[in-house]
């Protein structure tokens, strides 16, 4: 596989969320606004990339029987670091993300990439694969965050777009329902629908 493909494929043909169906939990829960979605996307990218790199460096020394627990220890160490950094620098976002930062540990993307890729590839390729998958996950998060914040609360990154456009004066109302949990699921369903009708070979 070409090096470039490692970064490119996760954006479309091998997207972790819409094609591999991994890491759904956090993807839906943190996307009511754009800012936490971006922070979450970056945190996951950092964790996947570094965990892939470390596990790939260790892959020949890990006994296969206990590999899951070794992977969990590496990942939880990285997540604790990310969690402490978020609490130190962006405390308000870290409060919004609440338990979902901790849940990066059991995010299936992380474990999935470790098992499927890092255990059998060289460190450099694994690092790129981690970055590619983290960003592929991030793209979906940003799309969801954008749509849900714009139509749900009429703002983007906290900036009142709809109000500045003067839409409220002519009778526009925010669709509060789109911030609710079920709407996130339906939006992901629609994204999958659009993607699969453009790529027929992804259909089941």
């Amino acid at each position, binding site marked *: 596989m070409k090096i470039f493909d490692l970064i490119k494929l996760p954006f479309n043909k091998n997207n972790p969320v*819409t094609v591999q*169906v*991994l*890491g*759904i*939990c*956090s*993807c*839906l*829960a943190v996307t009511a606004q754009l800012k936490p979605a971006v922070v979450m996307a970056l945190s996951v990218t950092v964790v996947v990339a570094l965990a892939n790199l470390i596990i790939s460096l260790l892959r020949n020394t890990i006994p296969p029987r206990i590999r*899951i*627990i070794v992977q*969990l*220890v590496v990942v*939880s*160490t990285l*997540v*604790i670091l990310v*969690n*402490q950094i978020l609490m130190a620098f962006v405390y308000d976002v870290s409060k919004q993300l*609440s*338990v979902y930062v*901790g*849940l990066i*540990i*059991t*995010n*299936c993307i992380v*474990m999935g990439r470790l098992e499927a890729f890092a255990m059998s590839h060289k460190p450099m390729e694994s690092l790129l694969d981690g970055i590619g998958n983290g960003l592929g996950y991030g793209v979906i998060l940003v799309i969801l965050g954008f749509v849900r914040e714009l139509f749900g609360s009429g703002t983007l990154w906290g900036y009142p777009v709809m109000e500045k456009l003067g839409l409220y004066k002519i009778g526009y109302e925010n669709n509060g329902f789109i911030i*609710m*949990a*079920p*709407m*996130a*699921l*339906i939006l*992901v*369903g*629609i994204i*999958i*629908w659009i993607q*699969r*009708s453009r790529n*027929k070979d992804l*259909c*089941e």
Partner: protein
Amino acid sequence: MEYFNIFVKSIFIDNMIFAFFLGMCSYLAVSKTVKTSLGLGVAVTFVLLITVPVNYLIDKYLLSPGALAWISPSLASVDLSFLSLILFIAVIAAIVQIVEMVIEKYSPALYNALGIFLPLIAVNCAVLGGSLFMQQRGYANIGEVTCFALGSGIGWLLAIVGIAAIRERLRYSAIPPALKGVGITFIITGLMGIAFMSFMGIKL
């Protein structure tokens, strides 16, 4: 009465799937038939029921600020809460392993029924999520924590059995090819979530 309230609340209102999207990965992957999803649901409930109270005791007597005071008063200022993530996941992995061995020894029939699902539960985010919510919401005593754990497990079980029953029927319906499989499952989960929203605000 408080116990019953927490129990009902965690089944219907704070449902793991419809309100917090926890355990979505196995929810989507294993919900093809009612029988297997029932097995996984029972296993998750069982593991939640054991791990959450154990993690509550660990949190209360080892990790939270000043918790070590029962060993000696000089330790009263120690705050180990940053270790909670790694300790929780270690406890979960260990307990899943022990539960697996105990079931294998004393009830081979149940072991065969649950078989492949048991080891997977260690990385199910609903289980770690249960422990993290327990820490965040500050339940008063171990009774409340147990009710919360049992309720969350049963809520997850209801959700996965419900979607599995619907998916068994969906096989015979005419769905656009691009929406088949994952896409329609997301949208139906969203609709089920809307139905569960009607429980919001119930207080017993």
